[in-house]
């Protein structure tokens, strides 16, 4: 290193130190409020978590599984709930309306519906100032709030009787808890420490509750089995933090990435490890690959390539769609073979209107169901 380089480094380090590493910004509240949203801002400040390790009795079986609905007509209305958001300057932030069959609910500004249906309502998430809570949205548009504030990422149990949430009691990201709530009474059935800070509840299927952390690019996966109170790490090489569960099976679908190749895997948890049932890889996929699987775990979808893959046989079916699939929010299966997808063409920063299609994953046939207005977006929810 020559003298100039040494002096340059010395100057840069000294100048940079004028901003202390402990300096905090003003937070994002004001910025986002100005743009209409009022979601809570920074997770800062410290406190000590209250440990409430309750007995776990969460249910992963599915005794009350509703009878499957008749297969939808090819061009009939969607059989899953969906939210249409207008004036979408910020995703999910404009005036929104929930549609579910004949029911229509205009959503209050502070309510997001995350799905699925629970009882006669829908799993939802609300925010008030800096607090955020989960609850059940009723047909009247009112939300019955459940559990503690500063709770997010609600995920329903396979039988829809319980809700798992990530409770973040402290603003400095410490002391996060996994809380399982009784959806009917709001009582806590379980309250245990998360395995890592900022862990995300990524799904709940018959194998258990799945939690993931992605800190500084290090992705870790954990599962909490039924009847246990400790998370078990599940090793997956090259995991990209894209992960989904099949509520009615033991199957999980996830994406790995290495050497320019992105792979979609369907796997089951066996003896504490993921036993891969099917892998499908594609080269040259630049965008994130969001895993999608049918609720019975028999089909997975590689949205970026418009491919449906039969997990048992490996047979791939090309979905005949004129535009790219809007890969997030993800497509949703209506039943074992009918997949609802939203498409949108992005071209030189201009977007075409979103279109909703129903595709048969066994034949690849797709039928246009509706076309949104330019500034409107549609978000499909789990049924």
């Amino acid at each position, binding site marked *: 290193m020559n003298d100039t380089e040494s002096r340059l480094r010395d100057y840069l380090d000294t100048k940079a130190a004028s901003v202390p590493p402990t300096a905090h910004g003003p937070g994002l509240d004001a910025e986002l409020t100005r743009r209409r949203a009022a979601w809570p801002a920074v997770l800062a400040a410290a406190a000590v978590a209250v440990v409430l390790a309750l007995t776990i009795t969460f249910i992963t079986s599915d005794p009350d599984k509703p009878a499957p609905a008749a297969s939808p007509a090819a061009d009939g209305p969607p059989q899953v709930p969906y939210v249409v958001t207008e004036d979408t300057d910020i995703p999910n932030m404009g005036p929104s309306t929930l549609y579910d069959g004949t029911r229509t609910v205009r959503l209050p500004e502070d309510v997001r519906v995350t799905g699925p249906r629970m009882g006669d309502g829908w799993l939802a998430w609300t925010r008030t100032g800096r607090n955020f809570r989960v609850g059940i949205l009723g047909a009247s548009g009112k939300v019955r709030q459940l559990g503690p504030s500063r709770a997010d990422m609600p995920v329903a149990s396979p039988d829809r009787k319980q809700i798992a949430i990530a409770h973040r009691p402290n603003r400095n*990201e410490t002391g996060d808890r996994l809380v399982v709530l009784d959806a009917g009474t709001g009582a806590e059935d379980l309250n245990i420490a998360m395995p890592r800070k900022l862990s995300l509840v990524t799904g709940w299927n018959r194998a258990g509750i799945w939690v993931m952390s992605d800190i500084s690019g290090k992705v870790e996966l954990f599962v909490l089995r039924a009847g246990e109170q400790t998370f078990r790490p599940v090793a997956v090489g090259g995991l990209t933090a894209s992960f989904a569960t099949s509520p009615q099976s033991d199957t999980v679908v996830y994406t790995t990435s290495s050497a320019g190749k992105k792979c979609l895997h369907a796997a089951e948890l066996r003896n504490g490890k993921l036993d891969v049932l099917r892998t499908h890889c594609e080269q040259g996929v630049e965008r994130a690959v969001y895993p999608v699987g049918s609720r019975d775990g028999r089909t997975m979808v590689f949205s970026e390539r418009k491919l449906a893959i039969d997990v048992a046989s490996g047979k791939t079916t090309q979905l005949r769609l004129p535009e790219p699939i809007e890969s997030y929010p993800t497509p949703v299966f209506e039943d074992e073979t009918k997949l609802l997808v939203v498409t949108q063409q992005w071209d030189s920063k201009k977007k075409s209107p979103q279109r909703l299609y129903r595709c048969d994953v066994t034949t690849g046939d797709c039928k246009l169901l509706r076309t949104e207005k330019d500034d409107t977006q549609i978000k499909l929810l789990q049924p």
Partner: protein
Amino acid sequence: MVSISGPRRALARDQAQTVVSALYEQHWAGLVRLAVLVMDDRQAAEDVVQEAFANLYRNWPLRESDAALGYLRTAVLNRSRSVLRRRRIARLYIPPHEAPNASAESDAVLGDERLQVQRALQALPTRTRQVLVLRYYLDLPFAEIAQLLGIGESSARSSATRGLATLTDRLKELR
């Protein structure tokens, strides 16, 4: 199937608040430092970083596979460049003695030797200054610098080489 993807690479919009807030906590100070080194203006640096985070939230989840920090760095660098360009145009209409100056407190901390480097660095083109900051402050490889700035790797290398040579000449002149 319930599908929720992870932060930074990809995550549900509904969870954007958690992830972007965490990124804000983790990277705000570092990004302000980066912007300060490029713009030499703390207030403008904070504004630029704030805008970058608001934009990240609006665009969450990112369409690229990785990249939240890269996105933020690129946004901060691009906005810094825009601010400097606007300021340069504005200065055409402002008498030199009214142009913004570094504070006396900042000068005292830096000392004469470092003030020379500061002046020499400020005289470089913005793009060259960005390359030098990314190389000698963040210690980034040229490939990553090229990616962040949207230029070729060879351009990043030659900018650094030319910038360092110019800096050496200017420092000799200032002695």
